[in-house]
């Protein structure tokens, strides 16, 4: 492809390409009825960060569950009803006061769908994929998470079949909170590791 040999036929729009593929397969009866709508429904409603938040809150409040989660996250999540595609083998990354984990997939954008939900745009961006492995500390700072130099930042690149969630340190000031209230502190960004659970000042 040289500078002065541009293709003459215009590119079809993204939507037109996606819909053309669907229509071509549909005509050959290769797509079961309502398959795409059902998939979208599951992706929008069943795979969600509230699931991961539940897992984290339970690990904070139930030492036996925490132990099972660390030993076998896949079955610990399944206990709570969380399993499915891109969750066939899951692992929890345990933060400590001196170790913070953050997840990326530099080669594509693999994510633990059943417990985190589909990944956000920023996670799929070339900016995040290229930068976080090399400049973790300054990038996290740009994204609003300023960690002390004494904390090791461990970037976990999802390059094979393990899917991860971050188990953050339970924040101070949450003593006696219910599992549900604790879960409300955990967002998708916390589960990926670009944010920490924030206890509201008024709590």
């Amino acid at each position: 492809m040289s500078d002065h040999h541009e293709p003459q036929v215009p590119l079809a729009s993204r939507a037109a390409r996606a819909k053309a593929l669907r229509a071509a397969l549909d005509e050959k009866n290769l797509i079961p009825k309502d398959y795409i709508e059902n998939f979208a429904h599951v992706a929008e409603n069943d795979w969600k960060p509230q699931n991961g938040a539940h897992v984290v809150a339970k690990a904070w409040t139930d030492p036996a569950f925490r132990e099972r989660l660390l030993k076998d996250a896949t079955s610990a999540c399944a206990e709570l009803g969380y399993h499915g595609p891109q969750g066939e083998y899951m692992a929890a990354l345990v933060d400590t006061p001196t170790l913070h984990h953050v997840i990326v997939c530099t080669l594509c954008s693999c994510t633990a769908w059943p417990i985190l939900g589909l990944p956000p745009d920023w996670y799929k961006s070339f900016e995040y994929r290229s930068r976080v492995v090399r400049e973790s500390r300054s990038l996290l700072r740009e994204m609003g998470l300023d960690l002390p130099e004494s904390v090791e930042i461990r970037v976990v690149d999802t390059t094979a079949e393990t899917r991860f969630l971050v188990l953050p340190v339970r924040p101070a000031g949450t003593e006696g909170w219910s599992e549900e209230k604790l879960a409300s502190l955990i967002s998708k960004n916390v589960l990926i590791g670009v944010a920490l659970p924030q206890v509201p000042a008024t709590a």
Partner: protein
Amino acid sequence: MDGVHDLGGVNGFGAVELESNEPVFHEDWEPIGYALIFVGAADLNAFTIDELRHAIERMEPRHYLTSTYYERIVTGVAALFVEKGYVTHEELERRAGGRFPLARPVTPGEPAREPSISFAPGETVQVRKDHFRGHSRMPKYVRGKRGVVLHQAPRFPYASAAGHGIEAKHEPTYHVKFDAKDLWSDAAENSTVVVDLWESYLEKV
């Protein structure tokens, strides 16, 4: 494959833009590609997820870097349905009413190493130094680097074979920890990178 998709450590990209209250899908066509992965991989057994990843990596580099995420998914899935003979490229372009770029040709895959070599947690390992043009889940930033095994994960089909649709031996993957400074001399202070690597990508030290 040392392609443009292998982005870890590439300089030049700008700020990461966060979106508040981001919807799962931004446009109505976006679920199509994802759903059709399952049609192709689970229902029709036409291809594997590894082949899908490889098809996306085989996109023309300029197309890869200017496409959106879901555009890449649609492109990879469409490329495989064409390559496997389910639809023709011409039909897709006719229906789309314009160009529908797919992927560049597949090259030969690589079977897993025989005999296998196992590694134990705590062991220092070295990532292979050699180059392979096909599908690989070994990011180039760890090529030839040494790290420490943190964990051995279950067996999965060897990606550099599975990505080419050839028989793929199941072998363990290892979570290997590298000091970021060993990967890039200008890397962040007190930072490590864990990469999940198939056994065949690793060597004894």
